[in-house]
């Protein structure tokens, strides 16, 4: 009969309307910003730089300015300048550090490729999304001071990943200590010093401590 399809459809909408009065699960809308959904652990939005301590973020950045992320970044939103001098890192090794590390978040597309290619686990994905700024150029161009966040923050937002990263770094540190000890033993030196900073070999990928010419 003509019209049965229409009536059938109306029955569905009526069922949904009336059902919403007694079943709160039918309310699918979250009243942002009063209510907020819990972000999943995997959620990613914009990278940040991991520092070992919260007190001295600039002194304990994991980044050694190897510029791999700068080269791999699809929209080319990372700009790095290497330092002229070296600073000891968490293992006590002398390393180059980023004198300038800028990310233009108006260009960044949060693809996570910088995180995947980083050999030092120095850059990780953040979870902030309320980033409105009054100036679209300076306001969205984040420098290394704005980007640096401590490892504890990383543990807070991505606990599983942070634990895996810490385990990996600890294993690498143990391996380098073993190596240093073996090298020291080979030289028949009796003291088992854990990696003398002065004698430590340069980091993998680190080049001569010359400032690179500023990229385009």
């Amino acid at each position, binding site marked *: *009969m*003509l*019209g*049965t*399809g*229409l009536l*059938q*459809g109306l*029955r*569905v*909408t009526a069922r*949904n309307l009336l059902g919403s009065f007694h079943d709160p699960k039918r309310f*699918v809308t979250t009243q942002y910003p009063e209510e907020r959904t819990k972000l*999943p*652990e*995997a*959620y*990613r939005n914009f990278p940040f730089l991991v520092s070992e301590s919260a007190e001295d973020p600039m002194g304990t950045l994991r980044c050694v300015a190897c510029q*791999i992320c700068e080269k*791999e*970044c*699809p929209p080319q939103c990372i700009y790095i300048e290497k330092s002229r001098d070296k600073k000891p890192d968490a293992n006590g090794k002398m390393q180059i550090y980023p004198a300038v590390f800028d990310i233009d978040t108006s260009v960044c*597309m*949060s*693809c*996570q*490729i910088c995180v*995947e*290619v980083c*050999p030092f686990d120095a850059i990780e*994905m953040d979870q902030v999304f309320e980033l409105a700024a009054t100036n679209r150029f300076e306001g969205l161009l984040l420098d290394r001071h704005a980007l640096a966040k401590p490892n504890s923050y990383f543990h807070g937002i991505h606990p599983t990943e942070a634990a895996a990263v810490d385990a990996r770094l600890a294993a690498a540190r143990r391996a380098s200590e073993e190596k240093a000890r073996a090298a020291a033993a080979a030289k028949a030196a009796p003291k088992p010093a854990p990696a003398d900073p002065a004698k430590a070999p340069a980091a993998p990928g680190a080049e001569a401590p010359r400032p690179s010419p500023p990229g385009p």
Partner: protein
Amino acid sequence: MSVSGFPAATPAPGPTVRSVRDELHGDLLEVSMGPHHPSTHGVFRMVATLDGETVTRLKPVFGYLHRNHEKIGENTTYLSSMPYTDRLDYLCSMTNNWAYALAVERLSGQAVPERAEYLRVILAELTRLLNHTCLAGFLLQDSGASGTPLMYAFREREKILDLFESLSGSRMMCNFQRFGGCRTDATPAWLGAAGALADGYGRFLDEFEELLTGNEILMARTQGVGRLPAALAVSAGVTGPVLRASGVDYDLRKVDGYGAYPRFAFRVPLGAHGDVYDRYMVRVLEMRESIGILREALRTIPDGPVMDPKAKIRGFRAKPGEVYSRIEGPKGEIGFYLISEGGPNPYRYRVRPPSLINLTILEDLCLGHTIADTVVILGSIDIVLGEVDR
């Protein structure tokens, strides 16, 4: 075609009517629909020449969203192109990623672990559900059912997006597949959630079909409208549900048997008339088959790594050679053509976008129909302008 019980759309004109019409018969009117028009699904423009309300000529104009995707793909590394493929057809980033990853894997002879193949099938079928659900909602919106069906469809889409977000970190721009597997592994909790969604989806489709499939207004608006003959569809290179609605049995999941698809039993729904209604029904039936594949894949997914341990992420270089690789995306055959010279980036990078090629038949479908029907016909082809213009 009129539905039984409805009078024919236009009564046969009597002699008086005819003389008045002849007298009033004026010039043809050229109307530019778009590029900013809500029912062109983005920045797409149709230059329609109208005789009264009937379309006598229709010229599709596109390119407003051109972003140089292919040239960027030639200038950046293989890995850096992956996030850009998300933005082709932004509803189906998972299948775009898979098509691109498959091309590079074939180019470099990269093996993929078994679990990753299953995970890719699961994600591709979730994407198919997502895309077809959205399409059904938009199609109904285009034909005048404003609001309700679209909101019902988006309610379900949200659940799939939540799954994508908890797995890949992003709702739409997943950037999840890698050369040699998937980026992260799915936890048992995630697989459980996907299974619960697959179990509940049939009920949603029942409700959706109860709401719409038998609806007389929908039938009157879509049956016999935009009929695509099978011969034209084949000669124009149309693929996907649009082709199958015309009765051509061509599904790359069966024809190519890529990934883990040969291990799953599923049917390929075919249409008989090739009109808008058939295109809608084929998609609904495809969703039901997708649910079956999903359940089967979630039940039989093997343990193991999701990434080949020998696969290289940093400093990836493909072997010299050329490859064309394609998969059955929700909109049709999405393919990537790559030529490698052994460097870190491809020498030539080309996308075969299903939306663009399906769109080429738009004029043939619209001729002789009213201007209101062109909106419904365009909706039934299922285009995403990000992919048409690239």
